[in-house]
């Protein structure tokens, strides 16, 4: 397979320090019972195309399971995709589970249906970014990239 334009762009961004996702390890997880996985898969595929090592959990994973996978896989960040309105509880539990495993340095970002009113609360709870369907995929990647570089 030849080098596509997309590969070239990723390589250029990486070389020029615009995108440093190459080699970063990211876990994309679907906590709770919500089965809407399109957004999670779009972001997982895009992160992989941008050079990250992506692990996708599949559906219905508990915060405890997600935290254990995150530690076992030695990831830099965990992305939680939630569309059923249970994001507050799930984020709090995931933060606790990571802390219990001494892995509080793993960053957490979230996506899905997250009302604007809840954003501040999630940030306060320890989330580094909230990415909704309105954003372009490249904007999401840039934001994650910036968080992981920080």
């Amino acid at each position, binding site marked *: 397979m030849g080098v596509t*334009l997309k590969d070239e*762009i990723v390589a250029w961004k990486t070389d020029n320090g615009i995108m440093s996702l190459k080699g970063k390890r990211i876990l994309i997880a679907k906590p*709770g*019972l*919500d*089965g*809407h*996985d*399109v957004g999670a*898969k*779009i972001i*997982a*595929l*895009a992160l*992989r195309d941008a050079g990250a090592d*992506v692990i*996708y*959990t*599949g*559906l*219905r994973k*508990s915060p405890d399971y997600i935290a254990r996978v995150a530690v076992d896989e030695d990831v830099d960040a965990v992305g939680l995709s939630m569309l*059923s*309105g*249970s994001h507050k*509880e*799930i984020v709090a*539990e995931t933060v606790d589970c990571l802390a219990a495993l001494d892995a509080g340095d793993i960053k957490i970002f979230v996506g899905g*249906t997250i*009302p*604007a*009113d809840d954003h501040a609360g999630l940030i306060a709870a320890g989330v580094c970014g909230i990415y*909704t*369907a*309105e*954003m*372009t*995929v*490249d*904007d999401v990647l*840039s934001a994650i990239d910036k968080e992981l570089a920080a």
Partner: protein
Amino acid sequence: MSKATKGHTEQEALAERAPPDKPNPFTPSGIEVPVVVTPDMVDFADVGQPGQYPFTRGIFENGFRGRLWTIRQYSGFGTAEESNERYRFLLDQGQTGLSVALDLPTQCGYDPVDPMARAEVGKVGVSLSNLAEVELLFDGIDVGSISTSFTINGTASISYAMYCAVADKQGVPREKLTGTIQNDILKEYVARGTWIFPVKPSMRLIADTILFSNEQTPRFNAISIAGAHVRDAGCTAVEEMGYTLANGLAYTDELIRRGGDVEKFARRLSFFFYVHMDFFEEICKFRAGRRLWAKLMKERYGVEDPKAQMFRFGVVCGGSSLIGSQPHNNIVRVGTETMAAVLGGAQSIFTCAFDEAFQIPTEHSAEIALRTQQIIAHESGIARTVDPLGGSYYVEWLTDQMEAGMMGVIEEIEQYGGVEKAVEDGWLQMKIAQRASERKRAADTGDTVIVGQNYYRRDDQSEGVGEVFKLDPQATAKVVEKYERVRDTRDSAAAEASLAALEKAAADDGENLMPYLIDCCHAYATVGEMVATLKGQWGEFEEPVRL
């Protein structure tokens, strides 16, 4: 590819570009549309008459003149008592059809006290973990005089069993029950995710509900084969219909395997779709799908009875075609989509509220959604004659093109080895994820114009939306308390005996499980207990995680 400039997001940079000044010649399904369609490009032989095979122009000879479509709005939240209050209000307002939204624990087979369930109790619908909750939900409502639609799949057989049991308790003969359970598990594996058991026993459970319903509740639709969710997940209109018809064929094969008479059960199969924004593609999707289903029933299965060849369907207008920026624009989108549904000949329509993209609809937004349908029904005049677009060169040409595309999708799945295998392997899931990425990419780059999102943005994108519906924070505690009371006060020996009988029946492929499930409901066994019993026999679906 546009690149984010300093201080700008890619989104903002794109929005400053001039929008295209010509329409895109390709439909979202990728069909290239000629500038003008001329009579020589159309074969009118398949158009036929309304109410006659192959039903291109509709299943009724008089269209909506006999009866308008059913306006069916989706609601249900928090506790059974709150939903009951809302339903009584809606019934007082003249609504005859109820639509029950269930919470995720009920849909996935967990009781409200299960650690997997606690965060989700009452969140996206009502919690119905046992018969006592269903009795509360229908308290003071005669289930023999209303039609109830349950949006449930993995545990649809249990919800249906509960509905039969509540009818028994109210003294309503089961044959008077009308309504629908979605009960379409194949698309759950692919898109919506409330699967529980492996594919084969799930197919058996669905066949059992349909065959039981044909005998005991002949006016009830025990399945609504849904394309809506794969569409919302990323498929094109052609793929949505192609996958759905392929699923319909898979259920038909399973029903025949379990001894069903296709002339009989096919009369009760119904379908469910999304309507998105490409107006003529949506209209032609329904005309083409209706015709193709009739042909498949007749040519593959030798179905003779026109009623068993008929493709009956309901729709949702909105879904992922609605966006969060400049949300009032969504009212126009839903209006356009509703017209497409009517012109395509839908039997029932649900219109999403304009704020549904980002919150639970408020009473205000829900009312506008309802009024949209009433304006189209009573003011626009488009329901006046049957299939008013029939015979249009473009509409008939596009109907033909889409039918060919749908047949191509069905053949591709059959070449893979059938729907069941495609789902078990994760092949369909992977295709849909790829489609979703393509659709997102087209929106991101501006190839697809989305007004207010990738073009025509302004500074305050969400102006005018203030009211936010809030769930009762005590709802979960109330549900758990009621659940524990039922567990404490029921005749536990009877509950255990009913579950033991269910377990034995599940091990025997020759048994129909419905009577056993109804017995469990009467004994106040819970959804979690019934599902755990069946899991013990059948195991769980192992999600093929492929990217």
